[in-house]
Structure formats: C-alpha cells, structure tokens
C-alpha cells in the first residue's frame, strides 16, 4: 500500500517570501502521479500542481513549483512570493495509476499561514 507523509503540521511565512512544504511517499510502483492540493478556509479542495513520475522535469505553475526527487521519493512544493490568499491547508497526494477509478492517497496536510 502506498503511504504519503507530510512531516510539517504547520508552517508560517511572511508575505512575499518563499516557503517549501515537504512530502515523502512510499511505493513500489515505477509509474505514478503526484499532486498538491490546497484547502483554504472555504473548505474547497483546489488542485495546485501535478507531476508525472516518468517526467524528470519539475512541474511549475506560476508561483508554485515542485522539487521531485524520484529516487528519494520526495515531492516538495515551493511557493514563491507568498500571498495572503495562499493561507490554507496543503495536501500532498499520490495516484498509483491513471486508469479507471484511480485512488488518490493523501498525506496528513500542512497548515500554512501567510502573515504580513
């Protein structure tokens, strides 16, 4: 079974600064997909960024980028130029295969607070 670990329950960053959220996972699969989801106080789950394991290039979406280290089974999220609206819970998630009914396995989340 796959497991996803987020070792930072809470983090804080000042506005305009950069912060990195950690995620490690355990799997015996060679091909899989990794995601970061954001859950603001509104409770909505929002996809932030995704990465295919077979791609060596790290994914980037505007101010969000990942550092994907396949051998180390590490998938960290970097948020640049942090904004107050980035305050949220962030969940790392693993998907074993992109087929029918692929199960997303989530980590326990990191609560990020962006301060003035």
């Amino acid at each position: 079974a796959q497991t996803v670990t987020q070792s930072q329950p809470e983090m804080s960053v000042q506005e305009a600064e950069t912060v990195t959220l950690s995620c490690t996972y355990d799997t015996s699969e060679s091909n899989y997909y990794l995601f970061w989801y954001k859950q603001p106080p509104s409770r909505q789950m929002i996809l932030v960024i995704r990465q295919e394991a077979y791609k060596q290039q790290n994914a980037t979406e505007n101010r969000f980028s990942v550092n994907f280290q396949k051998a180390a089974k590490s998938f960290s999220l970097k948020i640049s130029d942090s904004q107050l609206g980035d305050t949220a819970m962030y969940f790392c998630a693993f998907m074993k295969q992109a087929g029918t009914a692929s199960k997303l396995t989530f980590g326990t989340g990191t609560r990020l607070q962006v301060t003035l």
Partner: protein
Amino acid sequence: DTAVSQTPKYLVTQMGNDKSIKCEQNLGHDTMYWYKQDSKKFLKIMFSYNNKELIINETVPNRFSPKSPDKAHLNLHINSLELGDSAVYFCASSQPGSYGYTFGSGTRLTVV
C-alpha cells in the same frame, strides 16, 4: 455552473437518524468518488463508481451505501448515524489520466 455540486453543504442530525448526501457533476467524467475528511483533516477514500459500477469499496461500515443512478450522479446514504460519522464528506470526479480529481465543496455532517 458548478462542476461538482454537493447538497446539502451542512447537515446536523441526531444519532440514529438516516440521511443522504447528493452529488452531481457536469464535467462528463466517468468516475466519481466519496471521500471522508475527519476532524484532523485526514482525507480517506470511501467509494468509487465508474459509469454506475462500484469499483472501490474501502473498509466502510455497511451503514454507508452509495448509489449511482447514472454516471453524473453519486449519492451517499447513511443509516443509523453515529457520533463518529461527524466529518466533512467530499464528492469528486475524474477521467482516466493524470489530471487528478475535481472536488465538490464538501458536506459538513454533524451528528448530535
């Protein structure tokens, strides 16, 4: 137009009651899911349906019964509600591929 919509958004009910949560998606996705988020914010899959067929059924009490009348709808019925059922329940949908899920806004169920 909301892509994945759940109703109700909030549900407060007494122990022992039976309740349902409805979910509809207008994305044309073939697969729908129910996830439970507990008080510690941990998200865990409960069920998945692909085109009305049950695909994933995690270890969930029999009191929980999903129903999918068509591929755009996945409802969750809960019998004999218990205090421990209090949580946020998320519906989601996806298509085969690496694009992840689209989630509904969640239903906060409180059992008193």
